[in-house]
């Protein structure tokens, strides 16, 4: 490859890196906005549910009775926002890490190997959903929710 071709290739690669850096930061922003919006929505639902529960406790009648099983399911549903936040936090941290590597001229060669990168990332997974083993759905809820208690 002649010098002109090398120069042209380096220029194109530099443009791609710049593109990645700009897009990665926007992805982080969008992910964080999504988390904030979803968390606010869940908190509002929790406050509303708490108020309904108070009314239920204060009224002795069955007019606003909440079925215990349905209540359990709602409580479990509320917890998925926290689960989702943990999953997205990890992705955001990884995007920042990638951005830092793209910004570093002399990045350690090992940090640029995709297999090493993904292995490190996967080692930080703590939930079945992160391994694609079970979606955050009824399957996960039924298999994990509350049944997995270990006493020491």
């Amino acid at each position, binding site marked *: 490859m002649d010098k002109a071709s090398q120069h042209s290739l380096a220029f194109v690669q530099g443009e791609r890196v710049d593109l990645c850096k700009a897009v990665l930061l926007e992805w982080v922003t969008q992910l964080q906005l999504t988390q904030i919006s979803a*968390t606010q929505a*869940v*908190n509002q639902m*929790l406050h509303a*549910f*708490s108020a309904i*529960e108070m009314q239920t*406790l204060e009224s002795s009648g069955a007019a606003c009775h909440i079925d*215990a099983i349905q*209540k*359990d399911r709602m*409580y*479990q549903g*509320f*917890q*998925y*926002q*926290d*689960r989702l*936040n*943990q999953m997205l936090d990890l992705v955001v941290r990884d995007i920042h890490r990638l951005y830092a590597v793209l910004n570093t001229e002399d990045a350690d060669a090992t940090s640029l190997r995709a297999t090493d990168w993904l292995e490190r990332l996967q080692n930080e997974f*703590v*939930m*079945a959903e992160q391994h694609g083993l079970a979606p955050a759905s009824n399957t996960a*809820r039924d298999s*994990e*929710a*509350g*049944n*997995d*208690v*270990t*006493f*020491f």
Partner: protein
Amino acid sequence: MAQTILVIDDSASLRQVVGMTLRNAGYEVIEAGDGRQALDKLDGRKFAMAVCDVNMPVMNGIEFVKAAKQLPNYKFMPILMLTTESQESMKEQGRAAGAKAWMVKPFSPSALLNAVTKFCAV
């Protein structure tokens, strides 16, 4: 007089869900957003037990358990770890630190109350 439980989690919504579950069952609940805040609450008041998350900023749950076990007034306070972490190695760290139970989120309120009752028998 109601027994008091210390609930430690960096997620406000999780603290609210755990708090609602325990308060509806007649317990008093004091909340903390991380291990450091929780240690500040251990100021002499009596807690029947603590329900503690693992992954938190500032001071994580394992560090909190270790620190609480160093305090004469709280070294026997039962601590239930309530976390998304289900790996055996993490459970072992919790056990070694001094936790009494390990429960995986998302929890069922009835199962949490069953576990709490084991430590808060009247």
